[in-house]
């Protein structure tokens, strides 16, 4: 099997395990408020969830950084795809992700074990982006250990218009940037209005 997603591929598990074993304090939430708590905005667990998903299911070595100046990011291959997963429970909101379609295609190949010659269609790419954001959101909420489980909606994926600049994502509160092989994924949360 030529894909990096093969069963014998070595995982960089040591660093991830070390991160996951870190004891993080429980997040305090006022259930009556029902909104994304301010502390969730810089919750390390969201970053851990995103790293865990990309490293475990896609075998990618990733680097996380603060958004910084999004206008300085390298130009993306193709358009940007935007995915949003809405959740409700002790508090409500959405987890949002942006990634270039070229990276979405590469991740689709990894996930399905496809070779470079295999075609990836738009539907597969969209499904991949949806599932990626679903896993990041679900994994993050799961680590919060609330007594009532959260409900997640099916992710909505849209293509940003041509010329869309990542700095526009800043308006929607991206909290961190994940660098994957020279390309970028933006991840953030939006509280219920």
């Amino acid at each position, binding site marked *: 099997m030529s894909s990096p*997603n093969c*069963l014998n591929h070595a*995982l960089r598990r040591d660093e991830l395990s070390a991160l996951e074993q870190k004891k993080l304090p429980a997040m305090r939430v006022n259930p009556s408020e029902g909104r994304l708590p301010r502390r969730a905005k810089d919750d390390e667990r969201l970053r851990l969830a995103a790293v*865990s*998903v990309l490293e*475990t*299911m896609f075998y990618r070595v990733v680097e996380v950084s603060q958004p910084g100046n999004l206008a300085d990011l390298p130009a993306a291959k193709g358009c940007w795809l935007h995915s949003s997963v809405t959740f409700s429970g002790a508090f409500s909101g959405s987890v949002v992700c942006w990634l270039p379609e070229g990276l979405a295609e590469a991740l*689709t190949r990894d*996930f*399905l*074990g496809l070779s470079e010659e295999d075609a990836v269609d738009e*539907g*597969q790419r969209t*499904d*991949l982006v*949806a*599932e990626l954001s*679903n*896993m990041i*959101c*679900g*994994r993050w*909420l*799961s*680590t*919060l*250990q*609330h*007594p*009532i*489980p*959260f*409900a*997640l909606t*099916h992710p909505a994926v849209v293509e940003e218009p041509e010329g869309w600049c990542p700095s526009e994502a800043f308006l929607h509160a991206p909290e961190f940037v994940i660098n994957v092989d020279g390309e970028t994924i933006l991840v953030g949360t939006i509280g219920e209005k």
Partner: protein
Amino acid sequence: MDNNNARAEDRQLNILVVDDSAMMRAMIKRVVEICDFPGAHILFAGNGKEALQVLTEKRVSAVFTDINMPEMNGVELLRQIRQRPEWRQIICVIISTDGSDARKQEVSGLDVKAYLEKPFSPEVMRDVLAELFEPCAQA
């Protein structure tokens, strides 16, 4: 159905994968194919309601289900499976991002054989399949 077909179906290991993500369904199918269990055959459903329809039409050995799905979620699907005497032998496995204690508690009485938390590597899925089905394959 003639006797030969009936015997062939008896030997078939029908695994029903229930997930609203086509990507996850394809990924699980791929891992099952790599494991190469004799007689393994994958069926699909996009939510709990569709899964119940498949269960009424096909003889299913195992159900691998997500939890958060439209129409009918995985917890309700498992409840309905456990209520039907003819489906009580079905091996049920959960594959979900929601690995919270609260969710695990919610399904604790539903005889779930394994709880696979996403993200997981294909190796983990392979190990679960081997543990569940190797005794069947050897029989």
